[in-house]
């Protein structure tokens, strides 16, 4: 028997780690991974809430989040590749101009 709040706290911790990664990491790929971490944290809370309310739609939502994450990864990584091609860096602190 695990209280729901444990799962939520775990989810919150993971989410906070993701935000922290976004705030502190310089590498754009790592930042992107932090986003994935946040999505995973949210997924966990979806599944936890699904368990609490006995509604499978919570788990269905996770699938949609995954689909979005997959699409996002495909496009995002393509963007990262083209950014790297044009700027020769993956450091977001150096990628602060829209126009070269």
């Amino acid at each position, binding site marked *: 028997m695990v209280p729901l709040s444990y799962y939520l706290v775990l989810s919150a911790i993971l989410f906070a780690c993701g*935000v922290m990664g*976004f*705030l*502190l990491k*310089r590498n*754009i790929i790592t*930042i992107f991974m932090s986003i994935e971490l946040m999505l995973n944290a949210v997924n966990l809370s979806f599944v936890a809430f699904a368990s609490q309310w006995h509604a499978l739609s919570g788990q269905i939502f996770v699938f949609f989040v995954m689909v979005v994450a997959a699409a996002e990864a495909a496009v995002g990584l393509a963007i990262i590749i083209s950014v790297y091609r044009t700027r020769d860096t993956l450091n*977001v*602190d150096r*990628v*602060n*101009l*829209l126009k070269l």
Partner: protein
Amino acid sequence: MNSPNLFLWLIPLLPLVGAAVNGFFGRSFSKKTVAGVALLFSGAAFLLALRVLLSLASLTFPYVEPGISWIRSGTFHVNFAFYLDQLSLVMLMVVTGVGFLIHIYSVGYMWDDDGFYRFFSYLNLFMFFMLMLILANNYLVMFIGWEGVGLASYLLIGFYFLKDSAAAAGKKAFITNRIGDFGFLIALFLMIQHFGSLDYQKVFAIVSQLPAETVTTGVLTAIGILLMVGAAGKSAQLPLYVWLPDAMEGPTPVSALIHAATMVTAGVYMVARSHAIFDRAPTALLVVAIVGTLTALFAATIGIAQTDIKKVLAYSTVSQLGYMFMACGVAAYSAGIFHLMTHAFFKGLLFLASGSVIHALSGEQDMRQMGGLRKKIPWTFWTMFAGTVAIAGIPPFAGFWSKDEILWRAYSQGPSKIIWALGLLTAFITSFYMFRLLFMTFFGEYRGKLESGEHGHDSHGHDSGHGHGGIHESPALMLVPLVILAILSVGGGFINAPKFLAPVFQTEAIASGAEAHALTATGVADEAADKSTEFRLQLSSVGVALLGAFLAWVLYLKSPHLPGQIADSLGGLYRTVSNKYYVDEFYNLVLIAPLIAMSRNWLWKGIDQGFIDTVINDSAEATGDAGGALRRMQSGNLRSYAAWLTAGAAVVLAYMVWLGVH
């Protein structure tokens, strides 16, 4: 009632189509095509109007043609519907008939003008609006026409817009009319507020239930006076007449059509149309009578001293319009409309003839430069002579019948005999200055510089207005309308318009207590006595007309040096009259100059520059500063964006927690 379908909606629409065709495509048309289009559509409108007249026997008045719904707001409805009774039928015939004739005339008159297509587009547009005004079923549609003719008038007065004076005259007409329209609009608002409708039949039905405001004044009086303000603007009555003389800057056919025959009479038409309201507001009616009488006299005196042939006619128009209002003011609406009709004939004729004179003299308008033209342009002379006699009121010409009707009614049912007396005086002055015009133009020696028509082929007048050398008779295209109008001026008086119009005003008059009294007292009991009185009045009016003519003959033919001596002896008075009583200067000093000063110093420099501009500039600057400050947020650094995002999320969550706690 199975009245035939009159296709009333088609009558205004045809000129609109003509205007659109000429306006949009006229530039690439040949002049013949333009003229053809304009004449086709205005002629078709005239034919439709004729068809209405011919089916008169089978008509039951008022005939209402249901139009389309325009405004629906709660219980307030306005339809685009058309309304026909004897009154609008008379107007319809005048507008389409005279309008069509002037269209024909204009083809000849304007042939050499570059803006040929533009002119006819405007002219057709004017026809459209004027017909809307006449055929409207309610005050709002009438107001559309009312504004529209103002617009057309503005466009046509400023037709030669490269000329400063023409552009200024157009603006003057437009702005002066706005003052009148303001009164009209307020009257409409009052009607909506108190009667809940603008529909003629509904409004009059409600009004006829109200008691006459004989002792007190109230809504009806207010509406009446405000309507009169509107009419004064449109029909050039005191104190808003000042635009009409200036409007003579427009081409002469315009002066004939708009500023003599039709548009300026819209005010008279409107007052007559609203007679149900005026019948119950004696105070308003009195105002109408006083304004009309004073205008008639005032404008006539100015007319004496004018030297510009068109200006004389313009003041004459103002004066004659005053007559019409005088008639309306003594509740003799049918007499007013009768005069309106005859006036349309003879004043239209006079303007066209003066146009012909000007045309013959290649643009000369000053009568002092004319003289002795009788032999050179005989057609013009004879038609103009007919017009002059008609306006002077010499039987059996048209003007006599209508003017006499007005004077007789003013005498018999007016509030005071002074009105009649002033009317008679005006008739005398009218006769005088009209014959002065005739004598100065056509008799005596030619005083102008232009060579006479016989030698025209080697003249030096090529650079002048119409490109013709010498004095020459106008083309047939211009003379035909002149002749037709001359015939109408001669015989128009025999049309018994008052009797025809009687049903419109009769029914109302009987319902009204005040009118009933007048009717029973004068109309039935003392008919025999009235006949003799009327005859005596007719004699007196003919007498003053002949007297005026004689005086003119004495002063301008027999001893031409006398006017100068008289003018000298009168001195200041003459100068005053000659300068139109300095009314324009007075308005300028009292109204326009302070207005401009206030606009400049207070509205422009104070409010616009000092307040509005400051507010706008300061807010723009503040926006710019705020943007400059906020720009630092947009550093392009992804991580700082994330920080702001996190801060925002924290704030939102804090708020939600706070909400949850409370």
